[in-house]
């Protein structure tokens, strides 16, 4: 069998050029294995060899990623290889970003299969894992001896054109792809099996891991309510008639900011809901049932609060992505801050 040919990318440190002081090293190529590449070559044995190693400084790459990726793919164009390998970058952020970017560029511009390798929490992993294969490694170079065999095995598969299986079997970071598979047991049977194991205190493997949510420190309490400016926000989809901002009925990609200056009460037909996930009959009769402007205006007049903020913010919480909601919250929060708002009441349906 012909020896498979690999091209390898490493940074200035693994390329034995220098440390941080040599971070500005522009891309150079050696027509052989260098550094960890030698380890890979030993693992390839008779099956493969590294015919080119590109070394580039992490700072050089980070300061101009597009230009650097182009320079590197220009260098690689001259070589004929079956697969491209980048890293292992472990937890080095700039190195991981460079590995991801270059692998993607190699895939796109040179049409060659590529694999990067780094620690799961490396920023390069999150950004590039969907576009290229990112093999998971340990956190630091201490994990090198475990990383290299995994990389060698995967790279040989890629080079041979062997079909790559599921992430959990092959060791790469899930790319968010859905594949239909046939199971021996129906979902109902599998679900009951899991429940029985759980009841017996036996271990079981979930088919859908639950997301873990972070916590925020409680914000300090409003000191003087009678002087405070309070804002209303809702995920119940209450918007002015006509839905001027075209907020979606589900999986919202935006929120709206609407003036309630001079408005004492949300009146039927002036305001509607566009949220597609709950029975709208009651809120259509009286929008205050989701966005309580009437009561807040009264409390403002009674002096319980200093002021009802003249705008309310609205979006639709129906299957809206957590990441979208986070973004809306951040933008709304910044707007509230800029407008001297002291507290917010958010209603959900």
């Amino acid at each position, binding site marked *: 069998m012909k020896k498979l040919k690999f091209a390898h990318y490493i940074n200035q440190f693994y390329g034995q050029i220098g440390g941080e002081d040599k971070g500005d090293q522009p891309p150079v190529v050696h027509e052989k294995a260098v550094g960890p590449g030698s380890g890979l070559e030993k693992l390839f044995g008779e099956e493969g060899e590294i015919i080119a190693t590109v070394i580039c400084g992490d700072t050089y790459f980070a300061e101009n990623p597009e230009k650097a990726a182009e320079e590197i793919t220009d260098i690689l164009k001259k070589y004929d290889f079956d697969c491209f390998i980048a890293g292992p970058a472990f937890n080095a952020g700039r190195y991981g970003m460079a590995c991801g970017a270059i692998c993607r560029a190699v895939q796109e511009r040179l049409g060659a299969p590529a694999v990067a390798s780094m620690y799961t929490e490396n920023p390069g992993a999150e950004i590039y894992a969907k576009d290229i294969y990112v093999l998971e490694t340990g956190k630091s170079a201490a994990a090198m001896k475990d990383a290299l065999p995994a990389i060698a095995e995967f790279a040989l598969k890629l080079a041979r054109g062997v079909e790559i299986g599921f992430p959990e079997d092959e060791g790469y970071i899930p790319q968010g792809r859905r594949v239909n598979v046939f199971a021996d047991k129906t979902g109902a049977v599998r679900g009951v099996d899991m429940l029985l194991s759980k009841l017996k205190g036996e271990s079981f493997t979930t088919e859908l891991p639950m997301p873990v*949510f*972070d*916590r*925020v420190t*409680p*914000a*300090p*309490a*409003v*000191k003087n*309510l009678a002087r*405070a400016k*309070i804002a209303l*926000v809702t*995920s*119940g989809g209450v918007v002015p008639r006509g839905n001027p901002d075209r907020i979606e009925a589900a999986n919202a990609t935006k929120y709206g900011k609407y003036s309630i200056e001079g408005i004492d009460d949300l009146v039927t037909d002036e305001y509607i809901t566009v949220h597609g996930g*709950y*029975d*709208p*009959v*009651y*809120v259509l*009769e*009286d929008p*205050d*049932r*989701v*966005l*309580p402007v*009437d*009561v*807040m205006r*009264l*409390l403002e007049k009674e002096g*319980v*609060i200093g002021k009802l903020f003249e705008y309310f913010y609205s*979006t639709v919480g129906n299957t809206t992505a*957590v990441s979208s*909601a*986070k973004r*809306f*919250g*951040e933008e*709304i*929060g*910044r707007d*509230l*801050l800029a407008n001297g*708002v*002291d*507290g*917010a*009441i*958010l*209603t*959900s*349906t």
Partner: protein
Amino acid sequence: MVKAIEELGIPAVHVCTIVPISETVGANRILPAVAIPNPTGNPNLSQHDEFMLRKNLMIKALDSLKSIIEEQTVF
């Protein structure tokens, strides 16, 4: 969204029906609402009674904003 607003230092209260979801996601100030389709209303009451219900709920919401808390609290 409540968490994002809170992270900027503005106290925020989540008026919602499914409290366990809000707790899991991590809101700090949670106020149980009336029902899913009408968190701040009750169509079974007379207009006046419904208004008073809404007013009392909002007073509770404001109370939560002026309460000093160290951890997630359902009001």
